[in-house]
């Protein structure tokens, strides 16, 4: 087992474990904290996949902003009284069954399909020694060759709308 595989297994186990913790802990704050670990481990996976930019962006946005957002929301919607703050609904068993079924279905499909992508690991290095960030920047902003500049602009609009929406919805009146 080489180094990458080992790291992968460690990160994967922690990832799955904390994901399970998120959905099963009875205290909402504990769940939120487990969620942080989930995000962090996801960043680790991205690193393993040579996607440094995505990893950093993951940390920045998910761990940095969304987690805080969630914690603020938990704080503002405090559930007083002794009951658990993160209870399970009455039909949780139904959800469990469905999840398991879907999971088994997906995994089975993946295992037995003939990928369009070869299963051999590794990839050819990027042309030249362009780093991941540069390449993503080229893909996002390039005015002349193949680029995703339009989705980028739309994404900024989405963010604008989201900001305005969140403010409007969250108003007190």
């Amino acid at each position, binding site marked *: 087992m080489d180094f990458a595989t080992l790291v992968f297994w460690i990160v994967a186990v922690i990832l799955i474990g904390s994901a399970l913790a998120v959905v099963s802990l009875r205290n909402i704050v504990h769940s939120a904290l487990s969620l942080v670990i989930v995000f962090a481990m996801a960043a680790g996976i991205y690193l393993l996949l040579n996607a440094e930019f*995505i990893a950093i962006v993951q940390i920045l946005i*998910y761990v940095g902003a969304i987690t805080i957002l969630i914690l603020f929301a938990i704080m503002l919607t405090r559930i007083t009284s002794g009951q658990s703050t993160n*209870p399970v609904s009455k039909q949780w068993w139904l959800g469990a069954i469905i*999840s398991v079924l*879907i999971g088994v279905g997906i995994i089975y499909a993946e*295992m037995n399909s003939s990928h*369009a992508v070869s299963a051999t690991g590794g990839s050819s290095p990027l042309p030249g020694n362009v780093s991941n960030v540069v390449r993503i920047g080229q893909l996002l902003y390039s005015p002349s060759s193949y680029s995703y500049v339009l*989705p980028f602009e739309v994404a900024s609009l989405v963010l604008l709308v989201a900001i305005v929406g969140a403010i409007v919805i969250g108003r007190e009146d």
Partner: protein
Amino acid sequence: MGLTLNHFLVLGAMLFCIGLYGAIAKRNAIAVLMGIEIMLNAVNITMVAFSFFNHVKGNGLDLSSLLTGQIFAIFIITVAAAEAAVALAMVISIYRKRDTVDVSEIDMMKW
């Protein structure tokens, strides 16, 4: 046993299902949102994995430098952030109105 695409795909699938369970089976609205975040992360992992294991069989085009999966992941993250913001604003607003964040008590559209 080297890392293959299957590893990441299975990981993504399991994570997705865990997130699904969280979205279905928890009563706190914020917990539901957390489940949804987990699902989005699972998808992201799958996307990036596909972009890494990128030997496309087929018509000889060299698409390996098109980091489609990663770009997709960036956009997913962006939209997820926006959606989380709006959703949490809604949860707070509902909490102000009804003094509860229990989704099983928000059933005004019932029969």
